């Protein structure tokens, strides 16, 4: 099951090296929270490191809104590594020399796993806007089927940031005896009204694009690139902090100048950057997936079915928890992580919480930070030590 790191040529030596994804068709039916049954579904995933003889050193990586299976290392010919490469690799916080790390693209997304761009077997056409609505627990159920396929009985840890942290928490409630640790980074037990508001603005941007065609753009041979780019630009600004945008771009100009009488239009660096990010994203991501997954975020409410008591919810958990937040994250603020921590303490669960200073906003969970590295690495080092002792 291991991706074999090929000859790492121009690849940085501290990375896992060249990796390639695998595809599996899960032929067991998956009943979604909305009631729809997917008779089978495809998952694309990558693995890093080696599964030990008692199959106990596996870590599940849960991606966020726009993430995919490519979390670490390099794909052949690519100059950019996977999205969590700073923290996954040999000797890194999630150490591929000690753990077998599984990173899966979740259903409803658009990087090869079953989603709106896949063919609906009933109609013979792409699902498009008809893809069934999803909840975070559907991702957990699908990940559980992958776990069975890989013949792993218990995760050493389930780890995720943002929406990924929500999946880790859901795992601890749905399959309490199937994970030893949950690492919940820059996450929340439910979105705030402000968060939902930003998601709705993004969805409206997509739906307002004439090429959206009520979600049937694939059938029409079109793509709402403009609307999706706008959605991403809105999201992207909220994932950064005022400070980091100021430091990175200030009021520098990409073109034009301020001298009166010149006809050159002024474009600030930050405009140029955001437009670039928006366009890059809209060519790589599917608009229906974006709508589907932002809805999943909005609906997530960890404690709703537990009498709205987070402590009552977490009473079902059996694993240990590590919580991490970042000071400048205003989408998933440290207060949200503190609430999770408080609920876990009330439920009497083992939990540690590190509130990391960072000026990078919500994106901090992807970026290098020595304290973050030390907290996550120190925690997982202990997990690895215990696994190796019991080998």
């Amino acid at each position: 099951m291991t991706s074999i790191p090929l000859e790492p040529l121009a690849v940085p030596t501290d990375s896992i090296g060249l990796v390639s994804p695998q595809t599996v068709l899960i032929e067991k039916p998956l009943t979604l929270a909305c009631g729809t049954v997917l008779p089978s579904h495809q998952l694309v995933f990558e693995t890093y490191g080696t599964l030990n003889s008692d199959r106990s050193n596996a870590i599940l990586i849960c991606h966020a809104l726009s993430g995919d299976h490519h979390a670490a290392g390099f794909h052949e010919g690519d100059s950019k590594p996977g999205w969590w490469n700073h923290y996954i690799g040999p000797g890194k916080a999630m150490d591929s020399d000690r753990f077998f790390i599984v990173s899966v693209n979740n259903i409803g997304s658009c990087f090869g796993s079953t989603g709106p761009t896949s063919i609906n077997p009933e109609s013979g056409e792409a699902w498009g806007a008809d893809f069934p609505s999803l909840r975070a627990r559907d991702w957990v159920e699908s990940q559980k089927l992958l776990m069975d396929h890989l013949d792993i009985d218990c995760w050493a840890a389930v780890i995720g940031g943002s929406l990924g942290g929500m999946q880790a928490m859901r795992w601890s409630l749905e399959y309490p005896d199937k994970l030893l640790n949950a690492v919940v980074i820059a996450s929340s037990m439910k979105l705030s009204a402000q968060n939902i508001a930003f998601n709705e603005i993004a969805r409206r941007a997509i739906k307002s694009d004439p090429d959206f065609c009520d979600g049937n753009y694939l059938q029409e041979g079109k793509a709402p690139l403009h609307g999706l780019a706008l959605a991403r630009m809105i999201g992207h600004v909220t994932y950064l902090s005022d400070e980091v945008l100021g430091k990175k771009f200030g009021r520098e100009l990409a073109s034009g100048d301020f001298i009166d009488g010149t006809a050159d239009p002024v474009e600030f660096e930050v405009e140029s950057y955001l437009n670039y990010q928006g366009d890059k994203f809209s060519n790589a991501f599917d608009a229906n997936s974006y709508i589907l997954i932002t809805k999943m975020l909005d609906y997530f409410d960890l404690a709703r079915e537990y009498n709205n008591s987070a402590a009552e919810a977490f009473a079902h958990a059996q694993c240990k928890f590590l919580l991490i937040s970042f000071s400048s994250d205003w989408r998933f603020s440290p207060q949200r992580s503190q609430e999770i921590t408080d609920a876990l303490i009330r439920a009497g669960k083992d939990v540690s919480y590190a509130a990391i200073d960072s000026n990078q906003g919500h994106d901090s969970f992807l970026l290098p930070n020595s304290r973050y590295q030390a907290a996550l690495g120190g925690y997982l080092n202990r997990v690895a030590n215990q696994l190796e002792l019991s080998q």
Partner: protein
Amino acid sequence: MNQNFNFISDWIKPDSRLLDLGCGDGSLLADLTKNHSIRGYGLEIDSQSIEDCIARGVNVIEQDLNNSLDNFADQSFDTVIMTQALQAMRHPHLVLDEMLRIGNQCIITFPNFGSWRTRAYLAFRGRMPVTKQLAYEWYDTPNIHFFTYSDFEALCSERNINVLHRKFIAEQFPDNLLKSLWPNLFTETAVYHLSR
């Protein structure tokens, strides 16, 4: 745990819930978890200490004691403990109230500013004491309140706090007779077990 503080574990019921305010590197919690089966959490703000706790497998929460402890429910712990940090709190009396709101009992240790060592330091050198227990210069110290154990007892009685046990420690002064005759003089660290 420091040899001299072994008696603390006698004040803590096995299997009880313990909150350690300013838990440092987590060694006290680790010891009590291992030998006393307590279920404990520590609060700490020093990043190195937090890393040490995580490495030890001690539950550590990054939270500043000078901010509100409102996130902890009334009587949600059996014991709340604070070692050598009360003198560094902005409002020690309010922290004390909070400890007894959150915990059924509390254990507190602090350096006794009335010990002969600090008195002599101030009397003979005419400068603020820098001792093993109070190891900072006056201009750069986390210790912003200086009080003797007598001051502390007065505060407890003002606030109707019961002293269940008290223990006085003078690491470098083994003469028990002198310590019992003049505890304020010969105590370097005072340890109190309190309840409401």
